[in-house]
Structure formats: C-alpha cells, structure tokens
C-alpha cells in the first residue's frame, strides 16, 4: 500500500518532467527546422553566383537576362535605415525611460507606461500607411523632393517601432537599480539630476545596452514598414532623401513573383540567411553585454 503510493508518486514526477521536456524540445525543434529550410532553399544560389559577388555585388537585377544577384545595395539600405532609426530611437527611448522611472509623478507614470507599450502593439501596416499618407507628402512638399518615400521617412517610422522596446527594457533596468544607491547619493548632497546621471544610469548600463541592441534588431528585421515607405530603389543611396530597398522589403516584394526554385527564389532565401545572421549578431551582442558586461562593467564604473 505505502510502497505503491510512493511508486505512483515517483511515476507522476517522471511523467510531468518528460512532458515539460517534450514541449521545450518542440519549440527548439521547430526553430531548427526553420533554419534548415532557410539554408536548404538559400544555399543553391551560390552555384550561380559566388558568396562574395552575392554580398558585395552592386547590381540587383534578378529578373534580367542574364540576371544580377548583388545584394550590397540592399544590405546598405538595411544598415542605413537601422542606423538612422537608432539615432532617433535611442535617445528618445532612453530619455523617456529615465523620465518614467525616475522623474514622473505616479499618475503620469501610470499614463505614460501603457501608452508607450501600446505603441509596441501598433500593427506595422498601420504605421506604414501613416508614413505613406502623412509623412511622405509632408517631406515631398517641404523639401521639394521627387518622392517622400525615402530614408528619412522610413527611419522615423522604424524609430517609432523601436522606441517601445528600448524604453520598456531600459525602464526595467533603471527600476531595478537598488534604492540604497539612490539614497546614498542623495545623502551625499547630490541633486536628482546628478543622482540619475552619475549613479542610476551607470548602474543600469548593461540593461540599457541590451535594450538598444534589441531595439535595433527589431528595426533591421521589420518588413511591412520598409516595404511600404522605403521607396524600393535597389541602389546605394547618395542622400538621406534617396529611396532604398532594405533586405526584408526585397524578400516580401519579390517572393510572390519569383518562380518556385528558380535562381531568383533561391537568391531571396539567401537574403533571408544574411538577415538571419545580422539579427543573430545583434542578439548575441545584446546577450554578451547583458551577462559579461554586467559582472565586470558595473563593478568597475
């Protein structure tokens, strides 16, 4: 009697443990399948064009005869819009996080926090639409441009998308700075501003850096907005008012018309592989900063 109840209890433990393990395995397995598929469909293009010509080639004419598969303009487009978006989103995101976490009165905090998080939930197609019908005509008229669908426009929208990520993760980091540090600073006669700049922000730096990296990863992988407002010109831009064709936009725009398993089709998947490595790179940096930098960094500030 006693023995059997012990047995069944142990059996239950084992079953539960394995069910959880199975579910954990499933998500990893699916992710693995996606990566395998991505590579299987992307790699064949390198029989047609070398890796170097693919990445650094300046001509993207996948439907010409003979076609050109150089994605350098697309990579440059992606990097430029991500960079400009970060220039806007990083200060905005961090400063708003500081305001919400340290300065805002409680009522203001309760309004601002959900509003910024709501911004993250805004469908990107709605933002893209906003860019097309509001920002684009405005830019076109104000600066007398041939088109308002350009780097500036798309950078503004990507910044709007990255701000909630940067702001909410930074705010968590700032919030978790121990109260004792703040008290110590105030007790030494520091003002609020001095305390924020010299104690709170340095102590939260690793979290803030992670927030920035994740925000940038979000911007570089965003598809709908860049498809709608980047203008779609697969050429290296010469001014910030030029149109560009970032990688996700290219894939989304062309996949529908590329014949199945054609060179064009494989080339688009290969762009996906490049994009995959770029976001992976951002995530690895974010991860590196949040672990390694934390131990050494905060201690040696």
């Amino acid at each position, binding site marked *: 009697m006693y023995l059997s109840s012990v047995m069944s209890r142990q059996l239950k433990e084992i079953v539960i443990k394995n069910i959880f393990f199975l579910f954990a395995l499933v998500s990893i397995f699916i992710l693995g399948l996606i990566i395998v598929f991505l590579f299987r469909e992307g790699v064949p293009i390198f029989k047609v064009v070398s890796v170097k010509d693919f990445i650094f080639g300046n001509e993207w004419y996948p439907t010409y005869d003979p076609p050109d598969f150089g994605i350098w303009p697309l990579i440059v487009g992606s990097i430029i819009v991500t960079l400009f978006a970060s220039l806007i989103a990083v200060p905005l995101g961090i400063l708003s996080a500081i305001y919400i976490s340290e300065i805002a009165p409680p009522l203001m905090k309760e309004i601002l926090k959900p509003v910024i998080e709501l911004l993250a939930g805004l469908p990107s197609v709605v933002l893209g639409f906003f860019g097309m019908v509001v920002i684009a005509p405005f830019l076109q008229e104000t600066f007398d441009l041939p088109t308002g669908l350009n780097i500036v426009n798309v950078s503004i929208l990507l910044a709007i998308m990255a701000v909630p990520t940067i702001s909410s993760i930074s705010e968590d980091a700032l919030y978790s700075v121990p109260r004792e540090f703040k008290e110590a*600073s105030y007790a*030494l*006669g*520091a003002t609020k501003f001095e305390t924020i700049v010299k104690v709170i922000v340095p102590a939260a730096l690793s979290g803030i850096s992670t927030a920035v990296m994740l925000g940038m990863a979000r911007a570089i992988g965003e598809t709908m907005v860049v498809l709608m407002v980047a203008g779609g010109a697969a050429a290296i831009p010469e001014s910030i008012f030029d149109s560009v064709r970032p990688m996700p936009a290219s894939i989304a725009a062309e996949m529908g018309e590329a014949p199945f398993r054609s060179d064009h089709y494989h080339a688009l998947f290969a762009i996906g592989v490049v994009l995959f490595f770029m976001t992976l790179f951002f995530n690895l940096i974010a991860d590196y900063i949040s672990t390694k930098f934390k131990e050494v960094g905060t201690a040696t*500030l």
Partner: protein
Amino acid sequence: MQDDSIIKVKNVNFHYGDFKALTDINMDFEKSRVTALIGPSGCGKSTLLRLLNRMNDLIDGTRVEGEVLFEDKNIYDSNVDPVEIRRRIGMVFQKPNPFPKSIFNNIIYGPRLLGVTGKGDLRDLAEQSLRQAVLWDEVKDILGQSAMMLSGGQQQRLCIARALAMKPDVLLMDEPTSALDPISTAKIEELIEGLKKHYTIIIVTHNMQQAARISDYTGFFYLGKLIEYNLTEKLFTTPDVKQTEDYITGRFG
C-alpha cells in the same frame, strides 16, 4: 544656560500618509557628542534620524509638523534647499551601500559634486577620509578596484569615509552595525569613539550595549514618542521613567 546644541527638534509630528509615526518630539542634540536613539522596532527612531537631513522628503506622502533647527535655522523652511542640508549632515545607512564604482570613486563622489576637481586634492581628501575611517591601510593599494569586492565591514567603513569626505558637521548613523559581524562592529564602535572629537554623531541602534558603550546621551523611543532623554550613564543605571527601566532590563520590548 550654556547652549551647545547644534540641532534642536521642536514639537515635531511626522505622518506617513494617515499613520502618525512621531508625536510631539522635543530634543536637542549637543555638539561633538554621540547621541544614541534606542527603542523597539517601529518606534520612530529611524524616522526621526531621517528627518534631520530631510531624507524623508524622498518618500511620497509624508508630512512634517514643527521645526528642526540646525544652527538655529529651520531646515524645513520653504527657502531651504535639502541638498545643502545633506551636504552638511552626512548619513550612514543600515546596509552598507557603496556605489558599484571603484573605492576611490566612491570617496570622491561627494566632493566632486561640490566642484573639487584637482587630482591631487581629491587624492589627499580620499586618503584623509579613509584614514579617519581606519580603512586606509587595508585599501591603499587597491583604490582602483571595485568597492563591491570589499567585505561587509570594510564596505561600511568605506561608507563612513565617503560621508566624512564631505566634511559634514553632523553624522547620522542608522543602525550602522546591524548587518555586521562582532569584529567589524567593534572596529566601527572604536571609529565612532575617535570621530566624536570633530563631529556630532547621532546613532540609531537596536543594540543597547552598543548605546551604553559609545554614546554620551541616549533617547528612548516608544510608539512614536520620546519617553526619556538623558545622559547615557544615567539612563542605563537610574532611569527617571519606569518604562525605560522595563525596556533596558528586557521586561518588555
């Protein structure tokens, strides 16, 4: 009557929201003396301490009535800047709270805010403060290393040094040894003994022996009221109030 008091608390009431934490406190703190505040948890002694350098301002929903005179000026006057007060009345907390910076940068944090920038000046100040806190010999070779790797007792002495680097007139200590082992505690008590020549020290402690050992005056608090305020020797041997006697002999608490 000769007036040696540096801080005078007059008819002070203090509220956290609806909760009245201090009732009608009147207390003078004498210059260059150690005054201990004792009493059971929640009796308001820490609240009173934090009133003296306006640290309670940082908590939402608090209200102060009455006056706290520092050198005959009410620090709760609307034209007084709390930052100015905190620069002259330093504080050491219950839990050692060095910044996650180097030992050196911890010490010079305050002086830098005051605008001291010369490398040599800062170094001299750091050495002087660390010597005062009897920590210099232990850390003089590792000033550039993180303060976080020091032991708890060393961290607390670093916090004392950090407060001393501001050259305050008064040093408030909120149970500075409650998180420390007996040896570190002894070191800090010894340090307080040495510091009282130059500083007015007000210390909150749960440890009655500590109060008896290091203080000149002791105030006993109970339920937000100052029950008895007397010379330490008198309070611990022949207290005027029965309640005090009951508390120090352990009959209630």
